């Protein structure tokens, strides 16, 4: 199975929607890779500079209801083509969460206090995810290990490499 983790990009706001992650005007692109430059282009977050702030990041850490709004899987692909394969949040919109697991990527929900802990580790935080032990290790000003819950079916999708592969085998 592929490795999940990387440097954390902190998006300190609730309700970040799919139009902010990838604006609708780019939905006319017919390849995933073409989406790459437009990541988080319309994100309303003071001081955020998508091109600069995203560089070298592999994990997004954010607040509640991430990915609300449209069903566009482009919001997942734009992370994938920017080498981000984990989003950690207090909660997700249903379709975004399902799209992540359908693509074999991780949308990890943590209680508010654990999200606060990761936010408190400073600006430079590196996160690794151990799927077998359902543990996130975050190394910033100090190192913390946090347990998370992973739905068994979602785990199977990640192991299978996504829903299409799983469904083709099972149905």
């Amino acid at each position, binding site marked *: 199975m592929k490795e999940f983790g990387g440097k954390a990009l902190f998006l300190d706001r609730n309700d970040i929607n799919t139009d*902010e992650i990838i604006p609708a005007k780019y939905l006319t692109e*017919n390849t995933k890779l073409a989406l790459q430059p437009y990541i988080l282009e319309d994100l309303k977050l003071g001081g955020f500079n998508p091109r600069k702030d995203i560089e070298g990041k592999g994990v997004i850490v954010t607040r509640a209801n991430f990915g609300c709004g*449209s*069903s566009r899987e482009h919001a997942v692909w734009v992370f994938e083509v920017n080498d981000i394969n984990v989003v950690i949040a207090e909660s997700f919109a249903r379709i975004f969460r399902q799209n992540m697991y359908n693509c074999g990527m991780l949308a990890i929900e943590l209680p508010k206090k654990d999200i606060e802990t990761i936010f408190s580790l400073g600006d430079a935080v590196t996160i690794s995810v151990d799927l077998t032990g359902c543990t996130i290790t975050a190394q910033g000003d100090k190192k913390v290990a946090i347990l998370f819950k992973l*739905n068994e*079916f979602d785990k199977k999708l990640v192991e299978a490499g996504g829903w299409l592969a799983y469904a083709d085998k099972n149905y």
Partner: protein
Amino acid sequence: MGKTIAEKIFAAHLRDTPTPENVILDIDVVMCHEITTPIAITDLEARGMDRVFDTTKIKAVIDHVTPAKDSKTAMQGKIIRDWARRHKIQDFFDIGANGVCHALFPEKGFVRPGYTVIMGDSHTCTHGAFGAFAAGVGTTDLEVGILKGVCSFRTPETMKITITGALQDGVSAKDVILFIIKKLTVNGATDKIMEFSGPVVEAMSMEARMTLCNMAIEAGGTCGICLPDRVTAKYLWPFIKDQYESIDLAVEDFFQWHSDPDATYVQEMTLDVSTLVPQVTFGYKPDEVKDVTEMEGTPVDQVYIGSCTNGRIEDLRSAARILKGKKIAANVRGILSPATPKVYSQALEEGLIAIFMEAGFCVTNPTCGACLGMSNGVLADGEICASTTNRNFNGRMGKGGIVHLMSPLTAAATAVQGHITDPRKLL
């Protein structure tokens, strides 16, 4: 133990239970449009899996950008058009016959009580108005739907919203759902099905019920759902008349899907809407909602009437009621996009199009249009639109633009006055 309507539909479509929390359902209708389907098609082709599970259960339309505006959107249209022809998908609606998916497909009678419906579009929840389970999905779910006719869901949890009282004149289903979203917030219904019932819903037309269910997703809901009744049966009658001897028998049959009196809900809420006034959004989230009286006087540059939320014949009628014999303000650009060709021709016959045009509105072909800033009606930086659509997200109708969501009545009153206006003053 009793079951909710969603639990009954899930039980009737259960293919697999991979874990106690997850179910795989058989899908009755897989709907497709030209924005999210082409990537599914090209991916299936690349994998050597260019097949469809059942051509009669797939419905496709070009609606978001039509006519095509540039080479990229022309290619999206071409990919879905070629695919529909290749697989002999009969129910494919191209230019001249196309319209906004969630208005067009119900008109064609494609959704029935007890059905399961998916589409690569978040406003698929609209079809719950027919007593169906209908959910928006991403492209991978759509691919599997096209290929296998199945989709995965979490075990359903239902929130019961009982709407009581009586709506005053000038207040509509749009105001009711905006008010509900304000109460629930943008994630108050996440992973839940929103079951709408009570005397106000029973008195609503199918058009109004579709408006109500359309915005369930704006509270995070998986699906909005209404209990199918005589109103549903009458709407569907041209499509089901060979199946039932009478409307009464259809209504009786639909009753099998009704939630049992002892069904379990995760949350119950009763709203008396007798004193509800027209609702308008502010800010960038659909739960940022105020009474119109608090928003009056806000200047607007554009008024947009259309979309899967409010582009149906009743919506045009209610806006025309205000616009008749009036001109829109000089500072306002008015745009009307009837949702389907049928709505358009009906509006022509009823003289509604003439009312809009004499008032100074531009009338476009049926399309999703300005709603998501993909084709026409895009706002310039700093411009404000009064809109009957469903999302006021930052940049939704164009970078730097601001959208205030409201009913067709409020939008029409706003167009006439040039600033946000309580429609009750003009009735």
